[in-house]
């Protein structure tokens, strides 16, 4: 195992003291170190938001792009260089709100990337508006009379599109989070982890204690996470009846690289050898 401190940078972190994000960052470093990945082999990709600042707080390759648009560049860079480990860190608003369509189609495309959502059930950076996971009726800094949309279950959504790795973790349980991260990063295909992350500044409902009181770990011995319907049912569990943590669904399936076979078999796209003259033969089609 590498020393996780190779991932440290000195730049100041601008998250609020006490924010749940502070547990996710070292967990990621820990997971990468345990997987013996060097900083230059890894890219952290994000959109915009508090969670999305993660690339700035790591000594690794980073791509801090547009709000809601972490998934497309992540796929682009993985396709371009299959030797990179591409890991998205972004918020619930970013991943399920502005970026919902890319999640949906990213799962369909099944490029081998890991998508870690810091789900604080709120828009943190813009100061507390409802996100797609905010509870119906919850009052916020924008929804004065309460949120009027139903929250989604990100995990049920992912299972419904056929995502091959669907997991939930809690920022308050670092050890478990590290294990899930490692498993997701090793999984071949699109892997989604929804990480429950208290926002102490703006979400006064879903606090650390609220999560802590409700989360429980799936019992691996009795729960078959290859059963899609069971996973769907499990994914719907939420709230006072308990919030399951763990890998809810796991299925090995062909990845994008399996489907574009020359990518799987050949060198990385970025190492393709090509001269202008190599294209000359296509002129024959226009003779």
């Amino acid at each position, binding site marked *: 195992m590498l020393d996780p401190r190779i991932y440290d940078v000195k730049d100041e972190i601008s998250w609020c003291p006490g924010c749940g994000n502070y547990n996710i960052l070292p967990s990621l470093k820990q997971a990468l170190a345990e997987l013996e990945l060097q900083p230059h082999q890894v890219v952290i990709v994000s959109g915009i938001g508090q969670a999305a600042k993660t690339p700035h707080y790591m000594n690794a390759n980073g791509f801090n792009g547009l709000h809601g648009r972490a998934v497309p560049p992540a796929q682009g860079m993985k396709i371009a260089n299959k030797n990179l480990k591409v890991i998205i860190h972004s918020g619930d608003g970013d991943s399920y709100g502005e970026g919902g*369509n890319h999640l949906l189609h990213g799962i369909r495309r099944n490029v081998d990337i890991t998508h870690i959502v810091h789900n604080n059930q709120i828009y943190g950076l813009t100061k507390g508006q409802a996100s797609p996971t905010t509870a119906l009726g919850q009052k916020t800094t924008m929804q004065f009379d309460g949120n009027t949309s139903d929250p989604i279950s990100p995990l049920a959504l992912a299972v419904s599109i056929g995502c091959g790795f669907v997991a939930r973790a809690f920022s308050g349980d670092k050890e478990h989070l590290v294990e899930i991260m490692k498993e997701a990063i090793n999984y071949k295909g699109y892997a989604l982890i929804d990480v429950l992350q208290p926002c102490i500044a703006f979400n006064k409902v879903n606090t650390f204690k609220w999560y802590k009181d409700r989360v429980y770990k799936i019992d691996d011995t009795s729960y078959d996470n290859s059963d899609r319907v069971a996973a769907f049912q499990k994914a719907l569990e939420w709230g006072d009846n308990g919030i399951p943590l763990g890998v809810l669904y796991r299925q090995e399936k062909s990845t994008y690289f399996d489907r574009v076979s020359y990518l799987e078999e050949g060198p990385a796209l970025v190492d*393709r050898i090509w001269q202008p003259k190599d294209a000359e033969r296509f002129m024959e089609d226009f003779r």
Partner: protein
Amino acid sequence: MKYNVLIGGAAGLGIDTISILVEKILKRKGFFIYSNKDYMSRVRGGHNFIQVRFGTEPIYSHWPELDVIIALDKETVEFHAERLCAAGVIICDESLKIEYSRTVKAPLAQMAAEVKNPRALGSAAAGALLKIFGQNLELVKEVFIEKFERETAESNYHAFQLGYEYAPKYFEISAANKDSHILINGNAAIAMGALAGGVSFYASYPMTPATSIMTQLSMRQDDTGIVVEQVEDEISAINMALGASYAGVRAMTGTSGGGFALMVEALSLQGAMELPLVVVNSQRPGPSTGIATRTEQSDLDFVLTAGHGEFPRMVLAVRNPEDAFYQTARALNIADQYQVLVIILTDQYLADAAQTIEPFDYSRISIDRYFAEAKDIQGERYKRYMPTESGVSPRIIPGKIAGAVVLSDSHEHNEYGHISESAEIRTAMMNKRMKKLELLAQEIQEPEYFGVEKPDMLLLGWGSMQGPMREAVELLMQEGKPVGALVFGDLYPLPTKLLKKYAGTAKKLINIEQNFTGQLAKLIRQETGIFMNDSILNYNGRQLDSYTICSRLKKEVL
């Protein structure tokens, strides 16, 4: 000597097949070809037509007067007969009730029936056409063998022969040279340029008239090892391309105006991240969905400033298939060299217009990537946005150099790519990025000029107007008019040398554009203070031809 043939009918009747056959055969016989398409946004029915001009000299554009009409339905005659010249001929099936005297009513359907292939009707019509132009059967059969599967090749060629035998000879033309050309349309030429230029990743979402660029690349992806990805939307297309560019491959995307509009946020991301990127906008009439399968040049002012905030970019319009090839390869190099956005403008007219041109010279193309290497990186921590004299920072491929990580950021950032809100860093970074505009200005190519040495009347146009304007200048010069035309390819930064030279002495400046507001004229005003005296603008979705340009000039301006 030039002739002009129109092949018309409802969508789905096979006018494409006829035109491909006719164009290929005539080309092989050594003729110059120019063909363009006029079709509706539907899969079956309606009225579509293709115009094929061919002759013994190079042809640069389409032409309104027709010598022959192949009418697969009655509407074709109704819509186009008035454009037939005095000696013009119509070819159609005997069943069509057509009054026109010089009509070859051939039993085309019956011929198709005779060869037991109802879809061979078009081949019979093609046969009739070849005969009408007095062509022999040399080199013809090869085309059928290439174009069709074994059995259908037989029956189609047979139908062709029947049509050929049936028709009389009307015109006399023979080609002087052996065929040494390629016949290619604007979009295929862009794709060829991209392949020659080493594009490795093309992400796009289908949108007429840009789709065929993707198709041309997609059909060769296996063969070349590149990746062509059809994505969920245009936002994904450009962001995915930027991700691929970040990872070190040449990446490109293409769309039409509506899809381009969706890419605008990410154009600005390109600006912040300084990732090389080439984006093609194949224009069609707007606003909004507009007319999906028709042509316009109305996105110039849009693409010049598309994107929030300020960042450098280069905008160029391709002028014909040959230009499209070389400019696309050039755009890829410029994007890499300066880590900038290059926007290529084309339009439906050019996208679908096929022309015989000299084969591409692949030795003129180079692939210059401008990557820095481990030894070029100073200090211990890699500075993705290191200040340099030129404004261009050394760029490395992430993952290739142990110990060096690459941080690209959409926020304002310091030299490492880390977020910064400092006023000083902000100013320095803006200066660094915008400085590239000076470098781009040095790369800029002057417009093409056609005409007399000291024109009284200077016509100004851009992109796909090149062919029609070139022919219009020739026509006007034949009449002894002291005229010249500047046709811009590079548009931004705007090249002004030739413009100032010719505008300095010309008495009348007239912009000729396929749009309502005169967007080139506006750009020229903005950049030089030179005002046009008059303009010929067209925005009905159909490309101006040289004949119309000349007559409108005479009516509206002269």
